Each structure stands twice: as structure tokens, then as C-alpha cells.
């Protein structure tokens, strides 16, 4: 055989390198293949031998904290609208639909302007009410009815369902929005087609309808989740004017004022390829998967100017004796205490992770004290939620009937005081560390859970922390925890919320 020169080999190797172009990290038990495309999209592929399905999804770092001040709830609304299709998915007659959209936008523009200049601009904008005042109800309804007839409702979901995919869902949080689905491996290319299509060509159809769905979702959540009202009010009080205190769902009546162009501009700025990470976990082969990713997602081009500002880090005021928030509830009394925590990449986070492991669980301090010894609570736990710019640390207790949440608060304060005064025992810390390590493995078992974990951690800081016990935990000492407690569990920066049934019982 002819000898091949070294230069030729080098040349071939260089040409091969971009096509191969991924790094593989084997962290104990899982192999994660990471690739970055030229347009900045990142892809994580995690094969799992024996899996029958693929959990696939993507995350964008555009959450409620990035909503413009004039449009609270925009990120969440976008999440909804991204299910309404594109030029090629979701409409029977795209040309006719475009005509109707133009007519509707022109009409809504008139309604918005009328409202702004009118005498009742102190009331929320209601397009139907203003249309009625101007005698334009018939025209508005006619446009909407025809647009609904031209649309193929839920075509994206139908296409996935036909391919035997399930669990199609999305969620918006403060810092990110997550879109996931579980599908058979034979439908992988379909996923790439549909997801890249809706990221490159969303048309935001059925805008008015989706605003009503968002409003209805909120009503339903409040009606069916007893903790929701308390938690929302505590968060709002804790964060003040910072976007972290806002409701993710925002204000549908304010969003009604938004033009389609403004929506598009925001989407172009926030949903740039460099802000996207895809992940696929389960019955996947990395090499062909990355090829598909290049083919479909490589064509995404950045739009907008990239000049959107991220929100500032929040500053929580020190305010002694903040007013306690009290809400009525129909069932068990509850106590909730919230403190500002630390962001994901903060050096204190590992200590707060371990603090949680020390306080929680059957042999944790909270259960021993409040459930077993004092018998005032059915359950009590702490949870630290690290966000991108800050964090929240919550103490929550569900109390026995008849217990007064205000009277239980000093028990929590006493536990905190113990932690502030004395370092935790070495054995207690070792136990907590052991639990955290094993819990990390528990988060890796199931593909969909692992997918969400990978994408969330990636958006907040680093996906590597999602798949292995953190080395930083090993550096934490009892003194470190004591110092972090002193810094974090500060009475002057916390917000207390209580929920109790009316006197006389539930």
C-alpha cells in the first residue's frame, strides 16, 4: 500500500476534527457527549444502554426574571405560544392566515391607542371592552373566528402523538424555560425537525386565546394548590421590586397591550442560538445524533442585536421586624420562612446543600425536634433553591391541627440559634455528605428526570454538577456551615408567612 505522508495525515485529522468535535466526560457511570455548533448551540448526548425511549429537550436562559418591566409574564406567554406552530405546522392556509394576522394587529393597535388616550386607562386593558365601545366587536370576532378556522389546533402535539411520543411539556422558571418530550428512537429526526422549526419560525398564533388560557391556568392553580397563595406573597415581599419577586405567569391583561412585533423582537433577543442547550438521554447513539443536530440546529441564525440586558443581582434590604404575611387557609396550619440564599455558582452553595441534609430527613434536626419531640408538626423541612443571580432558602412546616404557626416560629429560631452558636458535629456532617452523594445518584436513574436536571443545571451554571457528587462538598467543614448560617439565616432579611384556618377549626 502506498505510504501516506504525515502532512496528509495531519490534514485529514484536522478535517475530521470538526465533524467529530465533541468532548466526552465519563463521570463515574454516565458518559455525556458535549458538542458546540458554530452558531453557539450546545448539545449534550447521554446514551443509556437498555433504554427503550429518548428523553429529549432544550433549555433557553430566558425566564420570568428577564421579562421587560412593561410586560411581566412574557417569557411564560412565549412558552405557550411556542406550541402554536409555525408557517409549516399549525395552519391550513398560511397566506390567508397572514392576512388575518395583519388585520387583527391593525385593529388591536387601534384598540390599544384608544385605551391609552381614553378616560378609563386606569382600568386594565380589555380588548373586548374597548372593541364594544367602538362598535368593532363584530369585526374582531369575525377575524378571530376565521383565524381559528384556518389554524390546525394543537398540530404540534398531534404530530408527536402520531409518532408515539409523550410527556410533551414545557415549564418557565425565573431564569430559564425548559421544553421536553419522551419519544421512540425512530422519531428522533422528527424531534429535530419540529424543535428547530419552532425555534426558527414561530408565528405566535392564537395570541388572544393563549392569554385567556394563561389567566385560566392561574385561577386553577390558586383553586387547587393551597400553598400557592402563601408562597407567592412571601416571595413578593422578600424580593421587593426585583424580577425574582414577580409571578412567572405575570399579568395577562398587561400582555394584551403587547404588539406582535414587540413579541417577535423579544423572542429574537432571548432565543438566540448561543443561549440554547439541547440534551438527549436514553436510547441514543451520539455520532448520528450530533449529525442530526448539526443539520437541523446548525441552520439557526442569531437575530436581534444581542443587546438585551440581564436583570441585576437582587439586594434584599435588612429590615428588622418585617411584617408577617398571614393568609387564611381551609386546611392545616402552615409556617413558611424565606431567606435570600445564594446563586448556583456561589462558594456558599455547597454549605447550604449540606445544611439542608443536616436539617432534613427522619433523623434530621427538624423532624426530631418539631415532629417527634415537640409533636407540633406533621412535617418540616428546608430547601435551598439556587437561581442564577441569587437564591432562596425556605423553611416550611405543616403543623398539627390547632397549632399556631406564630407560636411555632420561636422553635425554628431556636434551631437556627443552635446552628449559629455551635458548629455541627463531625459525624452529623459526614452523614449529611453521605446522603447528598447517594441522592445525586438517585437523580440519575430515570431519563426524563436526568434530562431536566442536566438542562437546568446547565442553564444555571454547569451540567457537570448534575451527574456527580460535587467535590466542593468535601471541602465543607462544621465551621463553614456555622459561618454560612450566620450570613444567610439572618432574621433582618427574612420574610415570614403563616396560614391558619379560621378559629373554630377547618
Amino acid at each position, binding site marked *: 500500500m502506498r505510504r501516506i505522508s504525515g502532512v496528509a495525515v495531519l490534514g485529514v485529522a484536522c*478535517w475530521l476534527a470538526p465533524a467529530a468535535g465533541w468532548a466526552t466526560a465519563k463521570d463515574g457511570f454516565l458518559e455525556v457527549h458535549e458538542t458546540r455548533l458554530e452558531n453557539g448551540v450546545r448539545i449534550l448526548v447521554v446514551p443509556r444502554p437498555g433504554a427503550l425511549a429518548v428523553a429529549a429537550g432544550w433549555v433557553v436562559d430566558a425566564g420570568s426574571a428577564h421579562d421587560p418591566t412593561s410586560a411581566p409574564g412574557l417569557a411564560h406567554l412565549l412558552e405557550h405560544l411556542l406550541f402554536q406552530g409555525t408557517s409549516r405546522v399549525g395552519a391550513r392556509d398560511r397566506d390567508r392566515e397572514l392576512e388575518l394576522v395583519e388585520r387583527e394587529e391593525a385593529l388591536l393597535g387601534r384598540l390599544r391607542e384608544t385605551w391609552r388616550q381614553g378616560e378609563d386607562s386606569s382600568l386594565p386593558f380589555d380588548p373586548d371592552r374597548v372593541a364594544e365601545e367602538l362598535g368593532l366587536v363584530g369585526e374582531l370576532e369575525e377575524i378571530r373566528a376565521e383565524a381559528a378556522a384556518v389554524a390546525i389546533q394543537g398540530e404540534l402535539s398531534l404530530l408527536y402523538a402520531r409518532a408515539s411520543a409523550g410527556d410533551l411539556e414545557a415549564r418557565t422558571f425565573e431564569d430559564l424555560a425548559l421544553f421536553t418530550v419522551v419519544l421512540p428512537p425512530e422519531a428522533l429526526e422528527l424531534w429535530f425537525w419540529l424543535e428547530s422549526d419552532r425555534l426558527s419560525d414561530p408565528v405566535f398564533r392564537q395570541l388572544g386565546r393563549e392569554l385567556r388560557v394563561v389567566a385560566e391556568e392561574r385561577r386553577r392553580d390558586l383553586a387547587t394548590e393551597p400553598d400557592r397563595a402563601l408562597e407567592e406573597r412571601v416571595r413578593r415581599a422578600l424580593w421587593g421590586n426585583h424580577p425574582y419577586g414577580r409571578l412567572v405567569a405575570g399579568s395577562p391583561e398587561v400582555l394584551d397591550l403587547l404588539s406582535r412585533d414587540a413579541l417577535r423582537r423579544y423572542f429574537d433577543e432571548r432565543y438566540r442560538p448561543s443561549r440554547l442547550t439541547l440534551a438527549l438521554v436514553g436510547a441514543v447513539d451520539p455520532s448520528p445524533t450530533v*449529525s442530526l443536530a448539526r443539520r437541523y440546529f446548525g441552520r439557526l441564525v442569531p437575530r436581534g442585536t444581542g443587546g438585551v440586558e440581564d436583570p441585576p443581582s437582587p439586594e434584599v434590604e435588612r429590615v428588622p421586624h418585617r411584617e408577617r404575611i398571614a393568609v387564611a387557609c381551609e386546611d392545616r396550619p402552615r409556617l413558611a420562612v424565606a431567606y435570600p440564599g445564594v446563586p448556583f455558582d456561589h462558594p456558599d452553595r455547597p454549605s447550604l446543600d449540606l445544611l439542608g441534609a443536616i436539617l432534613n430527613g427522619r433523623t434530621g434536626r427538624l423532624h426530631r425536634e418539631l415532629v417527634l419531640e415537640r409533636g407540633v408538626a406533621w412535617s418540616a423541612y428546608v430547601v435551598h433553591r439556587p437561581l442564577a443571580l441569587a437564591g432562596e432558602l425556605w423553611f416550611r412546616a405543616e403543623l398539627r391541627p390547632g397549632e399556631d404557626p406564630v407560636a411555632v416560629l420561636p422553635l425554628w429560631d431556636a434551631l437556627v440559634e443552635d446552628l449559629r452558636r455551635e458548629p455541627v458535629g463531625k459525624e452529623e456532617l459526614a452523614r449529611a455528605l453521605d446522603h447528598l452523594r447517594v441522592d445525586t445518584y438517585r437523580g440519575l436513574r430515570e431519563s426524563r428526570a436526568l434530562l431536566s436536571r442536566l438542562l437546568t443545571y446547565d442553564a444555571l451554571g454547569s451540567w457537570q454538577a448534575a451527574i456527580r457528587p460535587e467535590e466542593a462538598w468535601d471541602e465543607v467543614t462544621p465551621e463553614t456551615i456555622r459561618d454560612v448560617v450566620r450570613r444567610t439565616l439572618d432574621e433582618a432579611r427574612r420574610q415570614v408567612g403563616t396560614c391558619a384556618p379560621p378559629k373554630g377549626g377547618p
Partner: protein
Amino acid sequence: MTGLSKSAALAVLQALVFSLAIRAEERAPIPESPEPLIPESLALSLPDPDGLAHTLHGGALAFVAPDPSVPLVEVVVVVPAGEALDPPGRRGVAGLTAAMLRRGGAGALDPGVFDLRADRLAAEIESFSGIHRSGAVLDVAAWRLEEGLDLLFGMLAEPRFDRERFRLLRRSLAEGVESQRSDPAVLGSRAWERWTALPGEPFGQPLDAEGVRELEVEDLRAFHARHWRPDRLVFAVSGAVDPRALVESLNRRLRDWVEAVGEPGGEPQEAAEEEDDGEERPESGLGILDVPTTGAVVLAGHRLEPAADMSSGERYAAVLLEEVIAGPGGVNRLVGRLRTDRGLVYAVDSELDLAPERAGRWLSLFHCEVERVGPALAAWRQEVERLRTETVDTASLAAARTAVLARLRTRFDTASGVAGTYAEDALVGRSHDVWLGLAEGLESVTPSRLRAVARELLRPEDVVVVVVGPRSRVVASLRSADLPDSWKSGARPLSPE
């Protein structure tokens, strides 16, 4: 650099060809429409159940699915004994027994020491109970499996039923029952169960706080001895485990258990039939629990006979019917009609529970505004009637099939799901062939067969409706809706007791 060896050159050539293939694929045109990318057929190869099954000492069964990808082992053990076997006048025994296995200590370990031992292993050990079964779960790091099994078997074979912990738990349960009186969904469910309880079932008697407070540790010991027996156990084990070593370990422990309690003999005593309390109880109709709630809760449905006589074709049709009326996906007609299309309800959940050897039930539960109770119930009846009288279109039938198969894939996607599914088959007497032949079986279901099964299973004349909400407003809502007169004018007042 000088030339390369022949093998190195060959490797480079292979890499080059491979790279060319990748490049070509990356440059292939993207279809204009997603249609060609929808798979026409899907391969689904399920693990062979026989390869996972092990018969253990004393008659217990184990299904073991190894998965070395994560260094954990999950051991689930179940017995076919739950709330439905509560002895007469002793409601709550099954649940308390299961709960006390975890909380009451085991063998020489008092509860506090047991908790500490589990804690030191970073193990999660829990017990659970339901209507027809109870069990326990051990979730532990693979390198601590033997110690974890020691704790698990201590719980199962030698529960201490510590009196102090029992008193605490009994009090918690009693308080829980009392506080649930403020939960409309729980009130409604209990009222519906009482109304539709069959002779011999304990549901005709309420689970009330007073009854719970009268339970004693001896009740739990008796229930445990009767039902938590080595010959009745079914194990589902998954994770980083060697099946042979595990089976040896389980057998060793089971031998010790059998030696301690003696060979099991005879069938466990079933609950005696309840005495008829003489209260007149209509077979169907509508009742109202007058509770001053903000919204209403509605339960509608009826009991189903044991499905032992159903042919396999009918069973597959029932699977699709369940998808159409109770499935979590977009095919669900009730969700589509009541929630998505007409916004009549906040949420609707349904269940079509069919079992070969016991009575099942069909039940829908929805939350709505009080003023929408009537229209929501009317829409619910109309949708059910459509299923009985009209054939489901082929597109919806196909969608239901793919939704069921999608969940089948998810069910068998993890080792825990594999072991758990086959173990459940053994527990309820279901053949594994149900899964292995599911795709083909569903394909054979025609629209007319689905309609026939709907007619058989969904019987409007048997429907019992319980509405929880302020009575006068509920009655006003019913009055204007398209509902049977007996529901509108003959709504029976119900009591929470």
C-alpha cells in the same frame, strides 16, 4: 514524518469514509414537511420476563432486572393485602400496619435505633399501603445492599410495633382523617365509596377518627401475621445487582423467617362479610354533600364486575377505551370536552379500573365552579353516551393506540419499571403476554368493538354521582342543565359520616 503502517493507514481510511458519510448526512436536504419523518412502524422489544423471574424459598417470587448504570439498588416487596381487607369494624388496620412496619422498630432495634441505622446507610426505606396491596421499598447504595436487606427483612419479619410510636401514628392518622373533612375531594370520595360499596367490602363503613382511635397494636399484629407472610411476597429488584447473589441472599433470609414462624399453612383468612346495617341505599342517583366550599367537586361513575370472563380482544378494547376516557394524553375525550373545549371544569381525572378477580370501578372526578356543575355533568353524560352509540373515528383510535404504546415504552424504559411491571403481573394474576402482545392486540381492536365494550362497561343507568358544594347553588345549577329529572329533583342529601 515518515509514512504510516498499513493498519494505521487503514484506520485513517475508515475514519475518512465515516467522516464522509457524516458530512453527507449533515448536508442532506431537510424535508419541507415533518410528515415523512413520522415512523410508520416502531420496534419494541421487551425484556423476557422468564429470564428475570425467580421462585424463592417458601413460595415468594422475585423479578430481578440488573442495571449497572447507577450504583444503587431498589428492592420493592409487595403483599396482596390492603384497605379492602380491613376486618369488619376495624377500618384503618391495613394502613396502620404497613405504616408501623417502618416506624415501629424491628427485632432488637427500637424505632430510634432503626432510624439511625437506615440513616447511616443513606438508605431510603419506606412502607406503603393501598386499597388492594401493601408493601415496602428499600433504596440503597449497591455497596450497602446486605446491610439494607437486614433492615428490610427485620421490618417485614419481626416488626416491633413500638407502643409509643403506635400511639403517635394513630393520633396522626386520626387527626389526618379529621382534617380531611375539610378536603372536598376526600369527603366526596368517601361518600361515593360508601354509596357504592359491595357486600363484604369495608368501604360501606366510614374511616373515621373515632374508629381509628379504638385500634390497638394487637389488631396490627393480627393483620401482619395473617397477611404479611413469606409465601405471599413478590419482590421487584433493580439496579447494580448480581441476580444470583441477590437470590441467595433473599433465600437465606426467607429461610430464617420461615424457620421463625413455621411453614405457612392454608389461605389467609379473608375479611368476613359486613352485616347489612339496614340502611336503604339506592343503586344509582345523585347525592349532594352540603359543604360551603368555594368551588365544587363532582364524582360520577359506578362499580364494575370482575373482568375474569372478558376475552383478550375485549380486554384490549378496554385498554383503548380507558385511554379515550381516562388517559393522560390528548386523546382523552372527557378532558377535551369538559376542560379544553368548553372550559367547564378546572381539572378532570378519570379511572377505568378493571381487574380479573375483584370488582373494579369506573369513576370521573372533576373540580369546577359551583354554577358549572350542571353543565359539566350534562357534557360528561353526553360524551359517555357518544362513546356508547357512535364509533370512534379511525384517527382517534390510532392516536389512542400510539399513546398507549408510548406509555408502554416509558414503563419498560427503566430496570425498575421492568421488574415492577412483571412483579405486578404476578401479584394480580395477569399474564405477561398482555404486554408482549399489546401492540398486536391493540391493532386488532376495531371501532365497533370499542363501542361494544363501551356499551358493556359504561352504563348510565348505574351511575352514582356525588357533588360536594353548597347545596342550594348546586341544585340551581342542576335545574337548568340537560340531566335526568331524578337527579334534578331527587338529589339525595348526603352526610360526611
